[in-house]
């Protein structure tokens, strides 16, 4: 199964802070049947965030290995701005990457190629401008190796 799903794309996430944003995204994963424990996912992502969440040009990538997720999943959210690192501008696009413990190489490869794509300004511009969750999902799927 793909790490992407239209159910895991949200174009208008309203969150009070990063913990709230991560929690809401974790709930999407559980609601899509890809995880069993949104609270565990949230805790694991926040723990990983303690040592730094990568952010490039307004795109933040909170991520973790978590026993709360049963399938590798990527949640994508557009927001009006969530602060991950006080030294950076608020992030307006969030990519939450979740991998279950012991996940094999195949999904790791997909996720790592996604991480590389995030360094491409054309890709991030499309992330911000596509008008629907389905089109955004298509962009993610079609670009994958």
């Amino acid at each position: 199964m793909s790490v992407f799903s239209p159910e895991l794309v949200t174009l208008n996430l309203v969150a009070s802070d990063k913990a709230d944003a991560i929690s809401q995204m974790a709930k999407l994963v559980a609601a899509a049947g890809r995880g069993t424990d949104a609270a565990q996912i949230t805790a694991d992502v926040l723990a990983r965030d303690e040592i730094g969440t990568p952010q490039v040009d307004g795109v933040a990538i909170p991520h973790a290995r978590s026993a709360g997720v049963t399938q590798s999943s990527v949640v994508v959210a557009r927001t009006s701005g969530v602060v991950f690192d006080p030294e950076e501008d608020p992030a307006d696009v969030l990519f939450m990457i979740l991998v279950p413990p012991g996940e094999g190489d195949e999904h790791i490869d997909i996720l790592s190629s996604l991480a590389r794509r995030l360094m491409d300004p054309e890709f991030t511009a499309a992330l911000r401008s596509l008008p629907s969750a389905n089109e955004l999902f298509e962009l993610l799927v079609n670009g994958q190796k």
Partner: protein
Amino acid sequence: MKIVAITSCATGIAHTFMAAEALERAGKAAGHEMFVETQGAGGYKPFAQDVINDADVIIFANDVGIRDKERFDGLKIVQSTPKAAIKNAADLIKQAEELASS
């Protein structure tokens, strides 16, 4: 010049590859030959020995230990982090240029 780099991070999924992409882009933009070894969660593909032998300088962008670090004994090293590479790869390339010609 020929610049080699190693990227690695705690989870081995995101930072490692973003840093690699950033360094490849910045190095090529500055007219260098770039070789990046990503030491990620899916393991890594070691450089061929002649890539190491021909390198002018190496950039370590890691926040966990570099695997088989002794391969690079004797090379001039720019020590940095994946975060710095993602944020400002061009600056690391510049540091590498300066170190290589020092």
